[in-house]
């Protein structure tokens, strides 16, 4: 393709990838083809889907994938392991098994169509059912006809990389819990509705008269239904209250249960004695509404946790074991020390080990926070979780599983999260006061009326307990929190629990402290060309495009940084790619791009120009990797490659400081580098801590927490995970490692730091919504209690007042603004 043709094509219109819909980089536009692809992965996937006769998929889509497909071409043979199948894929019939596979890249209804056509593509697959919300495909297959590995390969070739869900037992326990709660809601709802109907008849009779026979019938029927509701779905509150009593802690279930139990006993006695009020309509309605509140909150918390689990794909679940001349894929768990494994470029190491053969560079950023790739050769140590960047390595394993460095870090994470004290939520703290005040008032009312009017004493005291039952309190928190979690999720901020919002927004005497990790958090995790210095005597005009054209053919991440930088359309021939540089011909010029030593070993120039050495030093001080570029044997430029500081980092830090949050950096990178980044962001040297090990980070977080201030940690790597779980609230940023995602309370699904401010904003607004709801519900309770003590309120008025309070609170929780409604 000529240069001119490419220019016209890119001037014409932006091309979108025919598979994923992302814009096609100008260097990859093929002017002659009708379909453009952003990468080879998308091209292969589209061809595969069309060859299966499923090309309709592209016409049906309502929403594009928006992530390039990357078929891995893996064999997935570890899925055919007997022990694995027994554990994860229970047999449905003799040879038919079912398994749930978590898929990457599920995005719209066309995916449902495509994936559920699996039985047509592969004979032996009995059924495939997709759950879109959880991106989980349930596959039922006949193991005699088709192995699971083949199913996995097919899914992979369609661009949906399959993963095995974490633990089938945990999932089935959760599923049972969810179903039980839903059953409870159904029973409570049916019971409450029927009791309400009977109550209408009784209230009608209250005004217009009713025969004693029918009144007794309705009251007894209400009693029976209410007992079912209270003892079956309502037992949840009674158990919660009992647990709170035993541990002497405040919990909202306690005052709720006091109200429920008092009402039930009084109602039962009144039914039996055929006098006074029964309270069953209010009680059953209360149980129903409270259950609905809990269900809604649980659903949204679950959704956030499920979405985070989908991102678990960074540590490899398999390894390439070398036995003699053969290479086979085995599960990581089966590796033992002294095994030889092969690790290809772009893969992460499955275990700790020593390089036995090959040279490459590795990225340890996830483990240490050190952003610059390190070169390794025979005899060097490599660690599980680090990424192999350049060449194929043969590694002799020294430690696997929990004995690896990552494994030890993960046990540290668990230990930190166990030590973390749970907070007593606002509603629960209020509940403690509620219980004390309500029982105190109950006793006072009882004693007072016993002297004044003994016949009505018990009735009035009981109606006080019932109207002061904190139903608004019990409803406000779950609804306000679930509205906030739902809105945050739409902004791609996943929050794992409602208490997190309270921890974020709670006022403290000392200023809260926020620690930021540097690599991957403040800086982008993708490498790019940050600095470019040409020789004083000048460089050829197209040198950057030439380098891009050459580097496009290499796979090293530094090469990728150049390749993405400029339209690379000059004809280029790559002669050789080494771990430290590349050599090639572009537009009839000989090009050398690589490290200082690589260039020096390949050019005849013995002395290196002073400007280049100086530029290299300056770049190294800023944590950039200097890359030298020589054209036709003459050094023409030095480029600094590294992680760019995120564009919104400075604004976010300024915003947080304005809120009175102390911001500091905790990084594993060299202290000088950290200070340079800190200075660029307006942070003083005192708040930039570099050279920290993961344990040091935990110590820094814990030391800060000693002062009593809430400590927030924002990070991405495995090295931050322990600190994330030790902090009051841990926030994992977009693209973080699996360990940090599971340790953090909040996951930011958008890149950049901007969402951090949004999280703080949203938490504050949510808490103020909760406070306002509580104030209203308290006002209702005080009013109703006052009326009950004086005996002014009768059964009908109480019956109207209580739901009115609940619905006002509900309305407020639903309509007040917490997180912004739609994604900006």
């Amino acid at each position, binding site marked *: 393709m000529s240069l001119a043709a490419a220019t016209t094509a890119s001037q014409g219109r932006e091309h979108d990838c025919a598979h994923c819909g992302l814009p096609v980089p100008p260097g990859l536009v093929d002017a002659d083809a009708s379909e453009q692809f952003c990468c080879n992965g998308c091209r292969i996937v589209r061809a595969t889907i069309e060859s299966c006769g499923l090309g309709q998929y592209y016409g049906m889509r309502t929403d594009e994938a928006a992530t390039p497909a990357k078929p891995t071409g893996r064999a997935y043979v570890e899925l055919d392991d007997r022990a694995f199948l027994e554990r994860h894929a229970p047999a449905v019939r003799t040879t038919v098994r079912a398994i749930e596979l978590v898929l990457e890249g599920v995005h719209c209804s066309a995916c449902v169509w495509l994936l*559920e056509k699996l039985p047509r593509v592969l004979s032996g697959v009995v059924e495939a059912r*997709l759950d*879109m*919300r959880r991106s989980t495909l349930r596959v039922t297959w006949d193991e005699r006809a088709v192995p699971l590995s083949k199913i996995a390969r097919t899914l992979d070739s369609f661009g949906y990389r399959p993963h095995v869900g974490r633990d089938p037992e945990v999932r089935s326990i959760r599923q049972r819990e969810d179903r039980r709660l839903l059953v409870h809601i159904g029973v409570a709802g*049916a019971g409450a509705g*029927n009791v309400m109907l009977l109550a209408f008849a009784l209230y009608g009779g209250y005004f217009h008269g009713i025969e004693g026979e*029918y009144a007794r*019938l309705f009251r007894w029927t209400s009693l029976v239904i209410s007992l079912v509701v209270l003892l079956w779905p309502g037992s949840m509150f009674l158990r919660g209250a009992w647990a709170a009593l035993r541990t002497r802690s405040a919990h909202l279930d306690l005052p709720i249960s006091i109200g429920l139990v008092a009402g039930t006993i009084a109602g039962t006695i009144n039914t039996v004695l055929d006098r006074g009020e029964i309270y069953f309509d209010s009680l059953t309605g209360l149980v129903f509404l409270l259950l609905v509140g809990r269900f809604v909150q649980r659903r949204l918390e679950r959704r956030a946790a499920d979405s985070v689990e989908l991102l678990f794909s960074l540590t490899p679940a398999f390894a390439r074991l070398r036995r003699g001349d053969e290479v086979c894929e085995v599960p990581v768990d089966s590796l033992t020390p002294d095994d030889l494994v092969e690790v290809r470029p772009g893969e992460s190491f499955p275990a700790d080990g020593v390089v036995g053969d090959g040279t490459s560079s590795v990225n340890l950023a996830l483990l240490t926070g050190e952003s610059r790739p390190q070169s390794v050769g025979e005899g060097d140590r490599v660690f599980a979780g680090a990424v192999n960047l350049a060449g194929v390595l043969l590694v002799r394993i020294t430690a696997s599983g929990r004995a690896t460095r990552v494994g030890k870090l993960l046990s540290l994470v668990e230990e930190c999260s166990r030590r973390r004290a749970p907070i007593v939520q606002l509603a629960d703290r209020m509940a403690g006061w509620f219980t004390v005040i309500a029982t105190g008032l109950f006793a006072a009312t009882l004693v007072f009326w016993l002297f004044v009017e003994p016949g009505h004493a018990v009735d009035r005291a009981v109606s006080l307990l019932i109207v002061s039952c904190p139903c608004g309190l019990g409803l406000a928190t779950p609804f306000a929190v679930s509205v906030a979690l739902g809105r945050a999720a739409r902004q791609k901020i996943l929050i794992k629990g409602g208490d997190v919002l309270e921890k974020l927004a709670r006022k403290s005497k000392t200023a809260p402290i926020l620690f930021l990790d540097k690599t991957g958090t403040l800086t982008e995790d993708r490498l790019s060309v940050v600095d470019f210095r040409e020789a004083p005597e000048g460089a050829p005009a197209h040198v950057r495009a030439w380098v891009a054209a050459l580097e496009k053919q290499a796979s090293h991440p530094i090469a990728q940084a150049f390749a993405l930088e400029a339209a690379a359309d000059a004809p280029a021939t790559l002669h050789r790619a080494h771990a430290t540089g590349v050599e090639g011909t572009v537009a009839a010029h000989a090009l050398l791009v690589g490290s200082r030593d690589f260039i020096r070993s390949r050019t005849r120039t013995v002395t290196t120009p002073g400007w280049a050495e100086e530029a290299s030093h300056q770049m190294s001080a800023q944590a950039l990797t200097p890359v030298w570029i020589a054209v036709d044997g003459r050094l023409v430029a030095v480029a600094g490659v590294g992680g760019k500081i995120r564009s919104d980092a400075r604004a976010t830090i300024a915003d947080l400081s304005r809120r009175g949050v102390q911001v500091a950096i905790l990084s594993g990178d060299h202290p000088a580098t950290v200070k340079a980044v800190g200075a660029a962001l307006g942070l003083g040297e005192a708040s930039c801590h570099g050279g920290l090990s993961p344990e040091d980070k935990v110590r820094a977080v814990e030391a800060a927490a000693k002062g009593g201030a809430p400590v927030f940690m924002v990070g991405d790597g495995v090295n931050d995970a322990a600190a994330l779980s030790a902090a009051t609230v841990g926030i994992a940023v977009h693209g973080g490692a699996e360990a940090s995602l599971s340790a953090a309370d909040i996951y930011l699904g958008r890149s950049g730091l901007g969402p951090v401010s949004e999280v703080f904003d949203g938490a504050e607004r949510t808490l103020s919504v909760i406070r306002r709801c509580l104030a209203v519900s308290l006002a209702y309770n005080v009013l109703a209690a006052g009326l009950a003590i004086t005996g002014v309120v009768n059964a009908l008025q109480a019956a109207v007042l209580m739901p009115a309070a609940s619905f006002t609170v509900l309305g407020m929780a639903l309509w007040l603004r917490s997180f912004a409604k739609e994604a900006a």
Partner: protein
Amino acid sequence: MSVIYLLMPLAFALGGAAVWAFVRATRAGQFDDLETPAHRILHDDEPSPPDA
């Protein structure tokens, strides 16, 4: 005897049947996924092969 003694047991039998059906459906997992069926219904059936 008033008709209410006939109607109330009848009403509760019907209501009880509905609750029983709901509990059964929930326990069978019919409410586990409320999102995908809404998409699935939109897909056309396969045209049946002419010789079948």
